[in-house]
């Protein structure tokens, strides 16, 4: 008797006890989501789950979306991904960088299942990668921040010094200095994506050192609450966080996965899904900005909107030269702009950022 038989027997016993075990044989297609945090983080994972719900609403009873939250990067993630694949899911979104290698390993064993890995760089025939050009949002925000700062110091709460975060800092700095060359940017690294207390403390430290606009690349609304309390400006992250800081929030850079998730699910249902590498920005709708604070002068809002439009139609490239790196060497020469490969591996600051990038 194999183990399968034993467990089947137990299952039958459960059935025989007169209570029905819910059948999992559904006609609809299953779409799975794997999250690194709890859906209640109000940040990164929360936005992905909003995308999942959008898929469910769009396709109704044609699909069944499932998710597993707080999956640890490492061996657990491979098991969960595999379990979903073995369980008959048609399409699986793995929504953290750390799920990259596990996703590829499982994908190799399940060539018929489609995988979508967020923020990674390794692909396969049945593995797409997707990410958002959040730096476009940060560039627009940088224009506003540069105009709004009185002290000419902008504070930035960083999580980990990885290219994704460094890119955001640089884009914001370039934009701020393009409208206000006196701006300098101070960065405080908190070594976590999510610790409201520590994020708030970092914001306080930055404000105490003179910053009057706070940006963050961490998940909780704590830095905005601090800004609200101290009477300085701040920019929301991932969601519109205006209810946490109605006076302080200039705008928020919103992750919007709804459209992409619906599109890819549709492609799977239609049988037209192909492995791709999508890095969408404003144009694709993956990056959005929350409504601007009414306290921002109209000309500044106009400038921001113009910048966003320019990015959308390609007339403005955030990393277009000329600009220098922090050490004074040329970042990009006049008439050139950084390509995606350089952006993906960015590990230096531009001129105007203070302190050394932790290595």
């Amino acid at each position, binding site marked *: 008797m194999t183990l399968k038989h034993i467990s089947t027997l137990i299952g039958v016993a459960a059935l025989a006890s007169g209570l029905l075990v819910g059948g999992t044989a559904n006609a609809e297609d299953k779409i799975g989501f794997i999250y690194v945090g709890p859906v209640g983080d109000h940040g990164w994972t*929360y936005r992905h789950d909003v995308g999942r719900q959008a898929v469910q609403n769009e396709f109704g009873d044609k699909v069944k979306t499932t998710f597993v939250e707080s999956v640890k990067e490492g061996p657990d993630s491979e098991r969960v991904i595999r379990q979903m694949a073995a369980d008959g899911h048609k399409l699986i979104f793995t929504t953290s960088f750390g799920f990259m290698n596990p996703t590829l390993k499982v994908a190799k064993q399940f060539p018929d299942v489609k995988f979508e890995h967020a923020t990674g760089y390794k692909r396969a025939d049945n593995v797409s990668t997707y990410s958002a050009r959040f730096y476009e949002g940060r560039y627009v925000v940088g224009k506003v921040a540069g105009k709004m700062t009185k002290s000419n110091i902008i504070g930035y709460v960083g999580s980990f010094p990885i290219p994704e975060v460094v890119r955001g800092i640089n884009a914001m700095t370039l934009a701020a200095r393009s409208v206000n060359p006196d701006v300098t940017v101070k960065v*405080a690294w908190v070594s976590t994506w999510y610790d409201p207390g520590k994020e708030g*403390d970092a914001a306080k430290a930055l404000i105490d050192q003179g910053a009057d606009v706070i940006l963050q690349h961490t998940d909780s609304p704590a830095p905005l609450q601090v800004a609200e309390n101290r009477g300085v400006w701040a920019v929301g992250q991932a969601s519109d966080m205006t209810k946490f800081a109605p006076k302080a929030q200039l705008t928020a850079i919103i992750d919007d996965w709804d459209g992409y998730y619906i599109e890819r699910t549709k492609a799977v249902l239609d049988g037209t899904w192909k492995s791709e590498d999508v890095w969408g920005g404003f144009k694709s709708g993956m990056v959005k900005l929350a409504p601007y604070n009414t306290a921002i002068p109209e000309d500044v809002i106009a400038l921001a909107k113009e910048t966003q439009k320019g990015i959308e139609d390609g007339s403005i490239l955030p990393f277009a030269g000329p600009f220098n790196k922090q050490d004074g060497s040329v970042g990009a020469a006049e008439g050139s702009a950084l390509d995606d490969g350089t952006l993906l591996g960015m590990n230096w600051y531009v001129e105007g950022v203070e*302190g050394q990038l932790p290595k």
Partner: protein
Amino acid sequence: MSGFDWIVPVILTVITAATPLVFAGIGELVTEKSGVLNLGIEGMMLVGAVSGFIAATLTGNYFLAVAAAAVAGAIMAFLFGVLTLSLMANQVATGLALTLFGVGLSALMGQEFVGVPVSALAQLDIAGLSDIPFIGPILFAQDALVYLSFFMVGAVSWFLYKTKAGLILRAVGDSHDAAHSIGYPVIGIRYLAVMFGGAMSGIGGAYLSLAYTPMWAENMTAGRGWIALALIVFATWKPGLVLVGAYMFGGITILQLHAQAAGLNVPSQVLSMLPYLATVLVLVLISKDQSRIRKHAPACIGKIFHPAA
């Protein structure tokens, strides 16, 4: 204007960072003094944080909210007491299980309250005094819980060393068999001490969700319960030093952020290690001197007591 203006806001930041640690630390101190080691502080803080937040959102009354947090923490501690005191389960394992349970329970309770804003606990500006430069904003413009944390440290210190009940509690922690033979209800006293610890941890958690960062988010304590544990050793089980230690731990975190913002180049991980290494060092220093450790560390800590044994 002097060049020291920056000191006041830094001190204010340190106060908010330290206050949850003071509460959790002073509560666990009393628990440990009675001879019980409860490693479930993190779990109790989280349940306190969410209970306080829910009560504040539903009633808008912060007094009720803090009371709810204290009661919730005490209930969690009572559960710990039933297992370890009445049923004599191992304290280390039960404490860890309590944390596991508390993390899950708080997340479950708080599901509907994620992303709900609540106004922060008000600062009590003491008229006239809070305007004094420098010391005014530090001493006379804090929220009620900060004052309560100072009061609790004083009260616990007075209780432990100046009252008969405190003497009995310490006796129970130092030798439960001796205390029992004199006729003290060892188990009953420990229940009270454990529940006091739970209530304080609950309030410490509520400080996070109501004052420090007024919101509820899963796992928002982010390891502060474990720091509280280190704190007690650091303080060599003396209430006053718990306060000093909490401010030192809070201070190191804040100074590290300031150092970064000022452009100082030290790996953040190295700075984050300092409090833990400092605790080990202090532990070594106080343990070396047998008489000092005997004077302050409860001898029966973690040991199971059975009256008939």
